[in-house]
C-alpha cells in the first residue's frame, strides 16, 4: 500500500512532515542543552540535537554530510565533551547556579538576534530560492575533496594534527607545577 502524495486534510508533503519533526527534535533538544541544570544531561541532549541535524542534512540531499555529522559530532566531539565533563565535574557546582546573573539579558539579546537574523532572511530575496533542491552524490563530493581541493584537504589534516598535539600539550599534567598535590 502506498501513501498518498500529500498528507490528508492538511495538504502537506510527507517530507515536510519529516523536516518539521526533525527540526522540532533538533531545536527542542538544543534548548534543553542550554536550559538543563545537569551538565551530563546537556551533553546527551546535544547528541540528540546533532542527530536531528544529521537527519536534516540527509533530507537536504547531502548524505555524506549527514554521515560525517554522525561520525564527527556524535562519535567524536560529543564523546570528547563527555570525557571533559567527567574530568572536571568531580564536585558539581550548586544546581541553582547554572546560569550567570546576566542570563536574562542574554536571553533577550538572543531573541533579538534571532529576530534580526530572521528578518534579514525574510527580507532578502535570494535569487536561487525557487530552484529545486538537488541531491549531491557522494562520488562527486569525493572527487572534489581528493582532486580539486586536495591541497586544502592536506592543510586541514595538518591542522587536525596540530590540534591534537596542541591539545595534548595544553592538557598534559605539568609535573613540576603539580607537586603540591593534584
Amino acid at each position, binding site marked *: 500500500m502506498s501513501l498518498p502524495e500529500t498528507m490528508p486534510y492538511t495538504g502537506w508533503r510527507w517530507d515536510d512532515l519529516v523536516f518539521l519533526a526533525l527540526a522540532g527534535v533538533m531545536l527542542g533538544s538544543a534548548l534543553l542543552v542550554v536550559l538543563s541544570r545537569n551538565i551530563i544531561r546537556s551533553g546527551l541532549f546535544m547528541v540528540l540535537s546533532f542527530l536531528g541535524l544529521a537527519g536534516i542534512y540527509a533530507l537536504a540531499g547531502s548524505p555524506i554530510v549527514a554521515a560525517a555529522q554522525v561520525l564527527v559530532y556524535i562519535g567524536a566531539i560529543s564523546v570528547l565533551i563527555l570525557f571533559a565533563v567527567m574530568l572536571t565535574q568531580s564536585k558539581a557546582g550548586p544546581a541553582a547556579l547554572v546560569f550567570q546573573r*546576566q542570563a536574562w*539579558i*542574554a536571553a533577550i539579546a538572543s531573541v533579538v*538576534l534571532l529576530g*534580526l537574523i530572521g*528578518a*534579514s532572511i525574510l527580507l532578502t530575496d535570494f535569487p536561487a530560492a525557487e530552484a529545486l533542491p538537488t541531491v549531491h552524490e557522494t562520488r562527486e563530493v569525493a572527487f572534489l575533496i581528493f582532486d580539486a581541493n586536495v591541497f586544502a584537504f592536506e592543510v586541514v589534516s595538518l591542522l587536525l594534527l596540530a590540534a591534537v598535539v596542541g591539545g595534548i600539550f595544553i592538557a598534559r599534567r605539568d609535573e613540576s607545577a603539580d607537586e603540591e598535590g593534584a
Partner: protein
Amino acid sequence: MSFFAEAGGHAGHGPELADPTAQLLITLLMAIPLAGFALSVILGRRLGSRPWVIAVPAIIATWLIAMFLVWQTLFVGAYGEYGITFTLYEWIPAGQFRVDANFLMDNLTAVMLIVVTTIGMLVHVYSIGYMSHDPSKWRFFAYLNLFMFSMLLLVLAGNYLLVFAAWELVGLSSYLLIGFWYHKRSAALANKKAFITNRVGDVGFALGIMALWTTVGTLNFTEVFTLIPEKVAGGELGPVLMAGICLLLFMGAMGKSAQFPLHVWLPDAMEGPTPVSALIHAATMVNAGVYLVARSSPVFAQSAGALLLIACLGAFTAILAASIALTQKDIKRVLAYSTLSQLGYMFLALGVGAWIPAIFHLVTHGFFKGLLFLGSGSVIHAVHEEQDMDRMGGLAGKIRITHLTMLIGTIAIAGIPPLAGFFSKDEILGETFKFGVYEQAFYVLFVVGMIVAGMTAFYMWRLMGKTFYGKSRVDPHVEPKIHESPWTMTLPLILLAIPSIGIGLALGWPLGDSTIKHWLEPVFHEAEVTLGRELPKVQLFGIDGILIVIAVSVATLGIVIAAALFGIGRKDGRSETVRSLTQRIPFGPALYRASFNRWYFDDLNHLLFVRFGGVVAESAAIFDRAVIDGIVNGTAKVTQGAGDRIRRIQTGKVQNYALGIAIGLIVISIVLLFVVTR
C-alpha cells in the same frame, strides 16, 4: 649593467663594470672582516687566551686579497685607467630616492687599500703581543675587525651615502676602541669627546650630502662628478652654493681628520690602547677626511675659494699642532699632535690643488706614523705602562730593535732624504710654492709649511732624545725589568720600518714623473683641468733643487737644535738648559706654558660649551620640568582619573565581554538593516 653603462657612455670615460671575479673579491674584502667581527663577538669568550685566532687570520686573508686587487689595479692595469665599479644590491629603494650599495675600485682606492690593509694587518699582529695581558682582549680583536670593515667600506664605497654609513661605522668603532678600557674615567671621557666632536663634523657632511642630492639628484661618485661640472658650466650652480657644498663636505673631513677647530678629540684619543692609536690616529681613520676631499676632487675643484680656506685651515692646524707638540711630556701626545700637524700638511696640499702629493703624504705618513706609534707602544710596554718622557731616557741600549725602528721613523718624518717623509713633504711644499703663481697667499702658506717642517724635526728629535738617550730617569723599581717586546710586536716594527725607508723613493722617484703620479693622474685629471693650475717642469738644478736644499736644511737645523738640547751628547741638566733658554726669549715662559696647555683650547671649549652650555641647558631643564612636564603629567592625571572610573566596566569575566560583542552585533545589524538599507 645598470646606470653605469649610461653614465660611462655619457662622460666618455669612467669606470667599467667589474667582472664577476673582481666583484667577488671586492665583496670578500669587506665580508671577511665583518665575518671576523661577528664570529669574534659570538665565540669571543670561548676562545680563552687566544681570541685572535679568528681576527688575525681574517685580516691576513683580507690583506692578501687587497694586495691582489692592488696588483691588478696599479701594476697590471687590469681594471683600466678609471677603475671598476659594480652594484651589490639596491640599498634604499624609496620612491625617487634610490641608493645602491655600489662599489668603486680605482687607483685612488687601491692606494688607500695599500695603507689601510697593510698597516691594519700589522697592527693586528702587534696587538697579539701588546694585548696579551688584557682579560677581555677578545672584545679588542672583534672591534679591530669591525674597524677594518668600516674603513674598507669607506674606501670602496661608490656613493656618498655609503661613504657616510662607513664614516659613522668608523666613528662607532673608534668610539669603542678609544674607550676600550672603559673603566678608566679618562678613557670613557675621551671616547665621548671623540664621538661628539666627530658628530659636529658629521652634521656638516650629512648636510653636504643632502645638498648634493637636491642639486644633482644622485649620490653616485661617477654621476656626481660629471653632473656637478655640467651644472656649474650651465650656470645652474652659483659659486656661493658650490662653495657651500664644498665646505659642508669639508666639515665632515674636518671632524674625522681632526682639523682646527675640531682637532681637540685626537690627542685625547690616546687614552685607547696603543695599537688603536696607531691604527686610528695614524694609518686609517684620520685619513678618511683626506680621502673624502681627494675623492671629491672634481667637486672641490669647482670652488677655488673653498679650497683656499681648506689650505689655510690645513696650514694653521699644522703650525698649531706642531707648536703644541714642542712641549708635551706624554710620548703618545707628542705623536698625536705630530699626526695633527701632518694632516694639516695634507689639507694644505689638497687646498692648493696638489692632490697627488696629498695622497702621497698620506701613504708615507701612514707607514712612518704607524711605525712611530707602534714603537712608542713598545717603549711604553718596556717601561711598564709609563708614558711620561720625563721618566724615560737611556733606553737605546736596552730595547735595540724598538730604538732602531723608531730612529728610522723619526728621520722619515723629519724629512731627511732618502727616507719616505722627505719625498712627500717636499712635493707638498714644492707645489705650494710653485702654485703661488696662481694665488699669492700660497707663498705665505709655503713659509708656514717650512716652519712646521723645522718644528717637526725638532720635536721628533726631542722625543728621541728624551726617550732613548741621556741618563735614565726610569723608576728604579722598573729599571731592571726593562725588556724588549715579543716578536709579534717587533716584527711589525721591522716590517713598517722597511716602507718607512723605501716607499718614498719607490713611489716618488723620479721627481715630477713619479710612479704615484702615474697611478693617480687619471683620478685627479679632471680636477687638475678644472683648476687649470699647471706645474712647470721639474728643474733639479733650478727652483726645485733650491726648494729641496731649503727643506732639508730646515729639517737638519731642527734636528741639530733638538740634539743639542736633548740629544746624545748631553748627560743631564737638559731641562735646566731648556728653562734658561725659554727665559731668555721674550714671553718665553708664557709661550711655553701656553704650548704645554695646548693653547688652552680645551679650556676654551670647556668655558664655551660646558659652562655656558650648562647654563643654557639648566634653564631649558627648568622650562622642561615646569611647562613640558606639567602638560605631560596633566594629561596623564586626567587619563588616570578617567581610567580609574571606566575600569569598573572591566569585570574580567569572559561572558560579560561576549555579551558586549552580542549587543554590538545587534546594534550594527539594526543600523545596517533599518537605517543604511532603507
